[in-house]
Structures are given as C-alpha cells and as structure tokens.
C-alpha cells in the first residue's frame, strides 16, 4: 500500500502538508443553545451545546460543570455498525474532548451551572477527534459562552518517512503514529497533544509537532472566518444592533 507516491501525492491527491476541505456551519440545530457542523474532508461531526443551565445534578459553587458525550452513527463508516455511546473509544474521546474544551471556557464566570456537549459523528473518515474539537469550538462560540481563545485542531501522522497532515481513514489505518493536536492561536498555546499507535524519534516528533501547529493555525483561521461571517449575518438580520 503506497501512501505517498514518488510524485509526492497521497491517496486522495493531496500533498503531505495539505489539509482536507474544511467546512463549518453554525446554528444547524435550532433546539440547542449552540450548535455547529464541522466537516474535514468526509468526516462530519454535529456538535450541540446545551447550557449553561441549571440541572438537578451536581453543580459546583464556583464554576460551571462540563459534560460531554460522543455518539457515532451506525451509518458513519463503510459498514453499518452499532457502536453506541458507551464503548471504550467513545468514552475516551469524550473525556479528551471534555478536558480540552473545558480548558478553553471561562468556567469561573458561570458558577452553579452545567454545560452539556453532545457530539454526533455522522460520517467517519479519519480525524474524528479533531473534527469533534473544531465542531465543539464552533458550537460553544455559537452559544455565546465566554471562551478564552479560539481552538483549532488537526491530526498529523507519519507514514513512509513522510509527515502527513490531516489523515483520512486509509492513512490512519496505515499503522503509523497519529498525533491529534488542539491549539490556541492567539495565546500560542498547545491545548492538547496526543500520540497514538507507535513510537517516534524525538527529532521526528518535533517536526510533526511543528507541522501540526501550522495545520491548527490554518484551521483556526477558517474557524474565525466562519464565526465572523455568521456574526455579521446575524447582525444584518437583526437590523439595528
């Protein structure tokens, strides 16, 4: 299986340092306080935010409590499979997303409330964690929840001695290490960096981390643009502000 041809093209025609088509839509779920759909290539995730709100559950007196749930639709991959919300993968993903996004929220401004994040993976083609994070970021911004910064996320990998940005499902199955990263551009801070499946020498790791940062930066640029567009449109629709 050749992941990068000698001409420098990947299986889908991209070059190693290119991101896939990125699409962001806000307000896709009317019943939620904030919602967004993010598409990276064919991976599509719908994020919905409910809150901050009061619930019967445990609330913290000083800050908001964030809960997160990730559900993968059975039709999201090539073969129909019920994966459910409780599987180990879903639990781990939900925990990672929750920690990352919660880190970005001004929780201390919202005491005794709860923020619920629901993610639905509608199409899965690699980079699910990153797409969830991006969708979550957009949904939180859509809900008007105070945030510390933008968060952009993308995944890098290393196959056939080439760093690859934004891997699709085929490339993720290639067996090389995967590094999803979440990054705050204005504060220049890496919020989350994970490595799955594999070992890397330190120099390669540094190269990959740099590439991931660049990729996240590009993603945040797109996120910011989407948010600004949406805000302007809302403003226009509302008339006198």
């Amino acid at each position, binding site marked *: 299986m050749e992941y990068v041809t000698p001409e420098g093209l990947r299986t889908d025609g991209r070059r190693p340092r290119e991101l896939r*088509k990125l699409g962001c839509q806000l307000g896709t779920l009317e019943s939620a306080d904030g919602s967004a759909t993010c598409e990276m290539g064919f991976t599509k995730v719908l994020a919905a935010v409910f809150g901050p709100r009061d619930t019967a559950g445990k609330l913290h007196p000083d800050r908001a409590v964030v809960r997160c749930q990730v559900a993968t639709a059975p039709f999201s991959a090539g073969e129909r499979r019920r994966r459910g919300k409780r599987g180990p993968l879903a639990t781990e993903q939900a925990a990672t997303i929750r920690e990352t996004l919660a880190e970005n929220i*001004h929780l201390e401004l919202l005491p005794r409330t709860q923020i619920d994040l629901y993610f639905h993976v509608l199409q899965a083609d690699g980079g699910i964690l990153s797409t969830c994070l991006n969708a979550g970021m957009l949904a939180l911004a859509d809900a008007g929840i105070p945030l510390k910064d933008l968060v952009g996320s993308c995944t890098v990998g290393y196959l056939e001695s080439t760093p690859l940005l934004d891997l699709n499902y085929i490339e993720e199955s290639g067996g090389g290490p995967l590094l999803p990263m979440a990054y705050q551009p204005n504060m220049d801070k890496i919020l989350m960096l994970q490595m799955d499946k594999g070992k890397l020498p330190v120099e390669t790791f540094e190269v990959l981390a740099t590439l991931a940062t660049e990729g996240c930066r590009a993603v945040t640029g797109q996120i910011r643009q989407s948010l600004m567009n949406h805000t302007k449109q809302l403003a226009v629709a509302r008339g006198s502000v």
Partner: protein
Amino acid sequence: MALLVESTETADWLSLCHAGLSAAGASHLGAPTFVCVGDAIEIDPAQGFLRGHGTHVDPNGALRASVCGVLQRINKLVVVRPLKSRYIAETGDVVVGRVTSIAGRRWKVDLHTRQRAELSLAAVILPGGIQRRRTAEDELNMRGVFKEGDLISAEVQAVRGDGSVNLHTRSARYGLLGEGQALRVVPNLIRRQRAHSHELGELGVSLILGCNGMVWVAPVGGGEGEDEAARRRGNACRVANAVRALGRLCLPIFLGTVMGVVGISVEGGVAVREMGGQAFLERVVEWEAGRRKEMDVD
C-alpha cells in the same frame, strides 16, 4: 505551509436572509466593530479601561474578547455583546416559563436561563384574590395553583447576587396559561419593550413575547360558535408561524414585525402550513427589506 480547501456550500436561512437584505441595500449597520473570540481589543494604555461583559484579560495582560459579537465602548467601559446567547434575566422582564418542580414554598420554573428561576409562594396571587398570610395549608395546596408542567407567564422580580432569579405573578396579566401554543426563539431577537403582552382583537389572538425567548400564542374571545373558534385557532396558528418564520430568519421579533408577516401572509393568500416554506420566507425577507428602507427614510 499548511494549505486548506474552503468549503463553498452553505444553505441556511440566515445566509439567505443576509443575502436578501444586503441585496436590497438594507443592511445599514452604522459600522459597528465585530470581534471574534480571542481577538485582541485595542485599548489606550493611557486612558485605561473598565472591563465589561464578554471580555477578559489574557495572561500577557492584553484585553481580549470572550465571545463573538459587537464591540461597544461606553466611555471607558469595554463590552462585547454576543448576538446569540442564553437569556440573562433582568428585573422587570416579562417571561414565560414552565413549572418543573415544587419544593419548600417555591415553584421551580424553567426559563431557559443560565440560572435557576423560582416563584415563591408569597409572590403569587392566591385564588380568592385577597392578600393574606400564606399558611401551611396553602403550602400543601400549591399544586392547586400551579402544578408541574404548567406554563406560566411571570415577571422577574429580582436577580439575586448568585445569579438566581425570583419571579412574581402579582398581576392579572400574569399567571397560568391555558389553551395555546408555546414557541421558543433565540432570546436576543426579542427586544425589551414597554409591552410584551398583546391582544390582537381582530384576529382573536393573544400574544405574549417573553424576554427569555418563549413566545405564547393563544386564541381568545368567547365562543360564538364553532366557526369562530376555528377562525381564531387558525389565526393563532398564523401568528405562531409568523413568529417561527421570523425566528428562523433571525429577524427581530416585536409586534410590528409579527403583524407585518401575518399581513403579507394574508395578502398573499398563503396557507398557514406553507408559511414555513422557502417561497414565503423569501417574501418575508423582501418585506423586511422594504420596512427597513422606510425606516431609513423616516
């Protein structure tokens, strides 16, 4: 350098609306400043600033926006107002909510706010109408007044320090809501005005625009037969759909716009159930553009 491919597909009502209004040249905004989350806000270091809602100071000391919205400077106060957020109660707001539970002389009401909303026993008009002390018996009979699941309209009496809301229904305008429809729209679309409850006598519809984004539409008027009742119900639906249409297009919702939309629907002979369709919504956009132009002229 990382490179990305932009997605060029958007198909939602908002962009439709935006397109329509912009095309018609009715998108005057008075050049406000939009900021996005994390954007740095310029401040004059000599002057200093007062940090308002929607902003925060980052570890380096720079002032940044916490939400996406419009930047407002009032003297030294720097505020970023989001265009969509959960309802934040203020004293005097008329709200519509649903009773969720009863505990210890209070009804807990769900207003879709961030914080808890409560209606204490002392704050309602007791059946009988007289002012008296609330007894233990009253407490046991709370369910007789409002029970779980009831929809009520109330006014915000106070917002406490920790953010929780106290409501009261000490007026004939407020209280239990009966036959009718409750809708939810984005709270920011509903402006704070003098009057929130409207009686549309001609149509036979009463309309309450709750500041928390809950809207109540009900047919009123005595029964003069089945037809009349049916007409009123039809009108109630029409009004409700008008509110829905405005909500979908993210247009401001107040009596004027609602009546306008109802008007064009009647003029255009649009059936109630078609009021959610694309054709009608486009017409709403047109109408709104026209209305704004007139306002400009005015």
